């Protein structure tokens, strides 16, 4: 199966080594376009499929030529409630580096203050 990934964060998506990438400068949640914009959504989907057909080299990026309109700048997919990991890290800020390094702490470490964690490890 031939695959292509549509991404608004192409720097990250290409870093993991996807075979084909269609980059688009649209906000998360709206990568195909604005709600109700049937023609705009079709144009993005069509361009993504054309990119899949045209890309010949593994790891290539096709930058799609679409621009998010100023009239839609307030459209946001931000959730109504703070995601659990964000809420958790506000209470456990010493574990923020774990998220940056993707090192998931052991369950018994997660609830400990740093000095306690150090004590339990020694």
């Amino acid at each position, binding site marked *: 199966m031939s695959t292509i990934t549509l991404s608004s964060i192409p720097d990250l998506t290409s870093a993991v080594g996807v075979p084909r990438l269609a980059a688009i400068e649209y906000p998360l949640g709206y990568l195909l376009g604005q709600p109700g914009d049937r023609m705009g959504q079709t144009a993005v989907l069509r361009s993504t499929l054309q990119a899949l057909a045209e890309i010949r080299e593994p790891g*290539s990026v096709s930058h799609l030529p679409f621009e998010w309109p100023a009239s839609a700048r307030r459209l946001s997919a931000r959730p109504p409630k703070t995601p659990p990991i964000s809420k958790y890290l506000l209470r456990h800020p010493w574990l923020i580096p774990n998220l940056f390094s993707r090192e998931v702490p052991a369950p018994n470490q997660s609830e400990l203050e740093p000095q306690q964690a150090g004590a339990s490890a020694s």
Partner: protein
Amino acid sequence: MSENLQASRQVDSYRFLDRLTQKLVRSWIELEAQRGRSAEIPWTPLSRPLADSTIALISSAGLALKTDRPFDQEGERQNPWWGDPSYRILPRTATAEDVKLYHLHIHPRVVEQDLNTLLPLQRLLELEDGGEIGRSAAHHYSFMGYTLQPQVLLEQSTPAMIQHMKQDGVNVVVLVPG
């Protein structure tokens, strides 16, 4: 050697991200660079023209039919380092009325506004009607993109999705992040 197509306009990866997320993304890119590529980038050439292809969509927005088993939001609330690694199957005719969004990092109203901004099932059917693609696959897929521990997703859910797609004769897959 990879290439940049339509490079006259380079997409800015950071334009819509808040400052903390920008920092996080830069950090994860650096991690990938340090890790290096253990293998070559996988590559499957397009086996037949798009007009003869069967196309499946995969969304990482945690979408499921309202009649299907919900994704485990409570598990993530209990352990914020964990995300449900399972997947759900969506029929090609699914609409916003049929689908619920479970991803805790995306506003559920996005689906209520228009499912096609996340998973363009109706747009794909229209390309099928117009003869631009062979057909929209019988089934499409979604999983929860927030997966810091991807082992189960990679070792169980992904092979299962691939198996389903093979049974449906899929030869093209479009992945759409939430």
